């Protein structure tokens, strides 16, 4: 049952990810990105990480993508203004860099799998680590300083964007 779900979700997520870049229409691209993010959230759910799945939907699909879509709709791009670039060198470079990146990913996965041994995780243990309680506890004990520093970083980013956007405060 889980395997079937995994393959369906994986297929949806990969196909919609390809469609993000293959679409000429910016709004359609954004919508496919939302589909990808949601199917990834489902994959997290299959792994027992319910908190991560819900946060993925709230933050990425629910907040950030709404802003993306908002901006795209405001700009109201027409089809001909937004298409694949005609310059040939860009295409060649894109394919070359893509190939390099693919080799890197495959190499990292191969090396990583050979060097470390993954102990099989029971579904109960996965549910335990994925729960809100466990994540909350480790965030506020073990990783307290990184957590607080991240929040300060975000606060600074918010203030910075306000200063940049508003001429008169």
């Amino acid at each position: 049952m889980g395997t079937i779900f995994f393959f369906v979700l994986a297929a949806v997520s990969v196909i919609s990810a390809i469609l993000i870049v293959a679409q000429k229409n910016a709004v359609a691209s954004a919508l496919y990105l939302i589909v990808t993010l949601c199917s990834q959230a489902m994959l997290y759910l299959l792994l027992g990480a319910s908190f991560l799945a819900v946060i993925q939907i709230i933050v990425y699909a629910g907040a950030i993508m709404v802003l993306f879509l908002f901006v795209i709709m405001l700009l109201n791009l027409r089809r001909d203004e937004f298409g694949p670039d005609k310059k040939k060198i860009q295409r060649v470079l894109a394919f070359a860099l893509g190939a390099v990146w693919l080799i890197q990913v495959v190499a990292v996965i191969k090396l990583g799998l050979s060097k470390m041994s993954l102990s099989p995780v029971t579904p109960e243990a996965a549910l335990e680590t994925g729960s809100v309680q466990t994540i909350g506890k480790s965030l506020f004990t073990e990783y307290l300083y990184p957590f607080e520093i991240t929040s300060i970083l975000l606060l600074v980013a918010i203030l910075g964007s306000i200063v940049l956007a508003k001429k008169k405060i």
Partner: protein
Amino acid sequence: MNPTFLFILITVIKVVVIVHIFMFILSYLTWAERKLLGHIQARLGPKNVGPFGLLQPIADGIKLLFKEDIIPAQANKILFVIAPVLSFIPALIVFAVIPFGDKVTLFGQEIDLIISDINVGLLYIFAITALGVYGIAIAGWASNSKYSLLGGLRSMAQMISYEVSYTLSIVGILMLAGSLSLVDIVKMQDSFWHMFIFKQPLAFLIYLICGIAETNRAPFDLPEAETELVAGFHTEYSSMKFGMFSIAEYANVVNVSAIATTLFLGGWQGPYLPPVVWFLLKMSAFLFLFIWLRATLPRFRYDQLMKFGWQVLLPLALLNILITAVIMII
């Protein structure tokens, strides 16, 4: 019988029954709204179809189904058709985590009166509510009409702004309850004075205001301000597609009422009457409030709405969290 099979069977039966009851409540909410609005404005409301106009929702449904279904020539056809579904589905599935009664025993089986008691129930509600905005946004964009686009953009801006305070207003309750499961939150409010409305009055007010704004109801119904935008994001929609948007709106109203009942009024808990009846009574009180507000309050201006959301509600929600934290430590 195989326990997995039994579990799936019970869940499917629960889903089917609840969806039907939910849709029944929605259709009669339209009747109640028209009747109440009528009486508040010294009219009679629907009265010709059946006794007290009780068959009016069915007549409305049949009328919508038989209307011509128009797709504008320049519209993006696929997205235009998908948009009503995208606003309808989230409104429907939020109810899955709301408990509407205690355990009951039927045919020797213990059945929880909730479709799914997940340990991130409250976050699930926020996640699904956040997805609800896409239906409206896509409808506005796909219609290829100025009014629709403006309505869609307004609605997105409004929902993003109020979602922040909406979520933050609940944090106080999370701190007191120490759980994200709605079943646990209901169980904590086991007597009259233990209801969270008394411990979190500020959060209750913020939640209610944001809930009304989230559902795009009066006095926050700017996305469909008819004097400025014809009908906002659903200007170009006709027939059952239009019907689905209005069903989604009513479903969201019911959801906000049900969540408010669960979080602040102790859910299904109450003396003498059966739990389900208590739940429906408390929920109806909120539904009445929604209609009452629509009948009495004029619409906000757009800049007032944004200012109110960011400069009044957001600081108040943060203040509420601070006060709750200080009181919990003392």
